[in-house]
């Protein structure tokens, strides 16, 4: 934190603001920060008032750092705080403007490509026209699906699903039995067949119990837990529909197992882990689209992977993470750079799984430059275009996996 606000003493305006209603002002300031997206709990506000009382109001710079040390809990929030502080403590009237400035601009709702007429669009239009008319015709696909319609849905490409089918697919994703992918940790826990002896419990039980000179040995074994799962998901134009379904999948995973870190990228990388933690899937996705600014735009894989490697890999890839990279691999950036970043990503995680919806085409061949560059650096290469593929992925994430998505097969096929 090298930049510091100017240390000029308080102006008459500010002095007046401080007088008497300082506590009120701090409360308002905290509320402004909250509106701007920072997490400021009521406890922090009380702390802030206490802290200002403790330190006293001296120079403006001190006041700045006093509030900073109590209200800022994440390095990422520093800039936000800085901006808010400068605006807020200058003049109260600026508050409204401050709020509107700090609120992230609402991104356009992802739309489908106009050229392709999708059943979803048609349906939406039809719905609007029919609405004011007579009693609704009953649609009974949802609740009681026949086996065959369920099977059809399992195989249907996400891109071709109607709104109703998407809703069903989402329910099926939520009901998916999520992978058993626990790995051994270095923490020990009581286990009757463990290899290590738990001296503390053994001794206790030998004194409490009546084993007459015999010590009943208690045992310990390594605890198992889910390794971190990191998803890096392409949300550029061609990937929109797949990414949205995949985000539903990620949301279900986040709910079920924890330790899921999610990122999306188009032209820039955005961390949406916190947003996906909202319990309701719709709300979670809503929050994601609030902070993501490049939905359905272009894609720059190498640049975004570089950003991930530099800013996040050390923070989320510890403790044996598995990475799911979701992209079609159609990259226009330099190949050399892409290979470098892929290699680095591959070396920093335990397993790198590439999910590519292009693989759904029967005649798929690894010919595009981006794909050829990326393939040697992944452990598995899979598709993710329908529910069946998603179920396969769940299967593959299982710790007792059978394997079978060798990426090199595609490169060898090209050579043959």
């Amino acid at each position: 934190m090298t930049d510091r606000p100017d240390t000029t003493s308080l102006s008459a305006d500010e002095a007046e603001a401080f007088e008497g209603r300082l506590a009120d002002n701090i409360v308002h300031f905290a509320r402004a920060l909250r509106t701007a997206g920072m997490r400021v709990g009521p406890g922090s506000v009380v702390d802030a008032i206490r802290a200002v009382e403790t330190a006293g109001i001296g120079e403006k710079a001190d006041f700045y750092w006093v509030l900073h040390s109590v209200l800022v809990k994440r390095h990422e929030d520093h800039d936000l705080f800085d901006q808010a502080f400068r605006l807020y403590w200058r003049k109260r009237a600026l508050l409204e403007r401050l709020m509107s400035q700090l609120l992230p601009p609402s991104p356009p709702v992802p739309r489908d490509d106009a050229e392709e007429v999708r059943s979803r669009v048609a349906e939406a239009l039809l719905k609007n026209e029919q609405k004011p008319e007579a009693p609704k015709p009953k649609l009974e696909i949802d609740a009681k699906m026949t086996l065959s319609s369920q099977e059809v849905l399992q195989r249907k490409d996400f891109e071709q699903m109607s709104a109703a089918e998407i809703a069903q697919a989402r329910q099926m994703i939520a009901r998916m039995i999520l992978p058993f992918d626990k790995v051994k940790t270095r923490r020990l826990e009581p286990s009757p067949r463990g290899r290590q002896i738990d001296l503390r419990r053994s001794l206790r039980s030998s004194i409490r119990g009546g084993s007459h000179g015999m010590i009943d040995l208690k045992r310990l074994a390594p605890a198992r837990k889910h390794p971190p799962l990191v998803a890096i998901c392409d949300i550029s134009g061609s990937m929109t529909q797949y990414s949205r379904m995949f985000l539903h999948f990620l949301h279900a995973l986040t709910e079920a197992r924890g330790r899921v870190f999610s990122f999306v990228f188009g032209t820039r990388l955005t961390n949406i882990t916190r947003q996906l933690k909202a319990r309701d899937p719709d709300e979670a996705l809503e929050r994601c689209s609030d902070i993501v600014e490049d939905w359905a735009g272009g894609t720059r894989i190498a640049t975004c992977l570089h950003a991930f490697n530099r800013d996040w890999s050390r923070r989320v890839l510890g403790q044996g993470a598995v990475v799911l990279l979701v992209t079609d691999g159609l990259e226009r950036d330099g190949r050399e750079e892409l290979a470098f970043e892929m290699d680095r990503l591959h070396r920093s995680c335990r397993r790198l799984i590439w999910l590519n919806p292009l693989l759904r085409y029967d005649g798929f061949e690894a010919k595009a430059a981006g794909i050829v560059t990326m393939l040697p650096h992944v452990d598995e290469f899979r598709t993710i275009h329908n529910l069946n593929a998603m179920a396969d992925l769940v299967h593959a994430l299982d710790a007792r996996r059978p394997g079978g998505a060798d990426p090199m097969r595609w490169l060898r096929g090209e050579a043959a």
Partner: protein
Amino acid sequence: MADQSPEIPQSIDATLTLLASADYVADRSLATVLYLALKMGRPLFLEGEAGVGKTEIAKVLAKALGRRLIRLQCYEGLDVSSAVYEWNYAAQMIEIRVAEAEGVVDRARLGEDVFSERFLVKRPLLEALEPDTAGPPVLLIDELDRTDEAFEAFLLEVLSDFQVTIPEIGTVTAARPPIVVITSNRTREIHDALKRRCLYHWVDYPDAARELSIVKAKVPEAPQKLSREVVAFVQAIRREDLFKAPGVAETLDWATALTELNAVALDAATISDTLGVLLKYQDDIQRMQGSKAKELLDQVRAELRAAG
């Protein structure tokens, strides 16, 4: 209990003076948060890249206040028996055997005997709760990001009440809570619940002037010209797009290494040969070697000349 050690500073300026007395060159933002942490009795959470001097802050604080420094180095799988307490099983076993040989049959009494403080092995967290004649100790919980969530949750409890429950003995509560400093290199996100209980500070790389004073204080034998060039070069290299930018620790190592090599000023060849002291990733070293090092050095020289 009378404290003979220096008092807790009573203002931000006093905190700056205190840190300076222990040769720590701090900026005002750090002094502010430190002062508040001491005054409000809250743990201080320091986050920042590796090698910016987070651990040093706790050490300096202990030294300046004349308190004992208790350090808990975190690692994956750290558990209560290594962090709080453990029983001395060997001694307990012997005690039991002796008692049995003497024909003691009262199991309950034997249990009380064996699980008494005599057989308790205290680990850092428990030690930090014990009273100390010099005043409450400084408890450094280093690299918290290396532990797992389970330990973090446990810590949450200890830090909010400053007490630990040992089932066999009872609850140990600190009469006066220790000064707690937690550091994290951000290899993992720390839960909000823990951060909420602490005062937060992001420790950044120092600016050139501060880094130069640090080098002067810690490597006094380095020639003045060399120190200036080393600091300017490190500052410049941090602006490059590196996988891991060098920390203050690396600057000090480099200044020491160059002094050992009898260098009085930087030159491209020496830089290339000693880059390994400064950069810890092969990709980074490769990028900076040769012409790039020369280019940066020329740039740094020009800057220094312009500054006089």
